[in-house]
């Protein structure tokens, strides 16, 4: 009986397998996008009921931090002209934490704040009474660039997040990364913004100048 040949090499040559897998990998890299659901969140005001008269606005002028942007992308911040957004976050922060004329409830709030935030209260009678009254108003023109609008909104958000973060002893980046999935993080998140509402008002833009 003839003996079986066992000279054949046992291994299959798999050298080109890596190349094939690489091709697949490159195909996926090209055809897919990494999910980028990041951005600046905001909640729009409720719709206007035509049967209801517009609500009375009895806010004091000093409690509104006004940012106007015209169609040439120039800013008017609290009646001061400027052409860039440098330092806007710091001004918003000072405005919100001013505590010019707090009522009893807000004196309690003030006393509960950490020293870092207490130090920021300038108690300027021309600025906001207390954080619950303070509103940051952004008004644009139809011709304002979306880029600048978002930059301003970004700075205002930054001011608020820094306040929240300093309150719980985190950095702003760490605070924003908190999620409501775990109870401990949610508690930290709620403690940061408790009694400090983020009041950003976005007015409807002016017509014209588009």
């Amino acid at each position: 009986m003839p003996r079986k040949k066992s000279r054949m090499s046992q291994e299959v040559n798999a050298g080109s397998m890596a190349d094939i897998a690489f091709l697949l990998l490159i195909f996926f890299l090209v055809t897919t996008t990494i999910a980028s659901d990041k951005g600046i969140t905001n909640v729009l005001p409720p719709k206007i009921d035509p049967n209801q008269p517009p609500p009375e606005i009895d806010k004091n002028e000093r409690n509104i931090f006004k940012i106007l942007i015209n169609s040439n992308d120039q800013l008017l911040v609290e009646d001061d002209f400027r052409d860039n957004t440098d330092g806007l976050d710091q001004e918003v922060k000072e405005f919100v934490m001013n505590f010019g004329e707090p009522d009893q409830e807000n004196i309690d709030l003030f006393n509960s704040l950490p020293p870092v935030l207490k130090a920021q209260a300038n108690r300027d009678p021309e600025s906001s009474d207390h954080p619950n009254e303070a509103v940051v108003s952004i008004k644009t023109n139809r011709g304002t660039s979306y880029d600048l609008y978002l930059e301003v909104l970004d700075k205002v958000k930054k001011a608020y997040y820094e306040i929240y973060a300093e309150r719980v002893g985190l950095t702003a980046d760490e605070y924003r990364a908190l999620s409501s999935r775990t109870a401990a993080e949610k508690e930290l998140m709620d403690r940061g913004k408790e009694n400090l509402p983020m009041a950003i008002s976005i007015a409807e833009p002016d017509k014209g100048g588009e």
Partner: protein
Amino acid sequence: MAKFKKKNKTEENIPTSALPDIIFMLLFFFMVTTVLREQELLVEQKLPQATQLQKLEKKSLISYLFLGKPKNPSVYGTEPRIQANDRLISTGDIIQWVNEEKDKLSEAEREQIYISLKADRDVKMGPVADIQLELREADARKILYASVGKVNQDD
């Protein structure tokens, strides 16, 4: 004298049979972390930059609106247009679109719908404000201005 014989038994070939496995692992990683392009973009998209980015937790609640100059100006003109799903819509269609998107969600989640506005950075505020007004009318008030992170903080 003792004879020292150099060992010459080392194989010359590096075994590469594990290489495909490694590449496949990479491939699976990419397949899991990425999504296939769901729709073809009909408008230009260069997202603006921002620093205070937040990530939304529930992806199923997000609906996307794209806003930008049409990529095909000979058909759609040069004015910024709104794209929802696969087609370009006008401002007046937004309410209907929002209701369609809400119908896809379950009863309890319907009011939690998030609109991700992916607007081109060269767009003016006019169309953006129109969209905001329509979204208020449609009662989809949670909005995410999609943007990418700023690379250098000091410009």
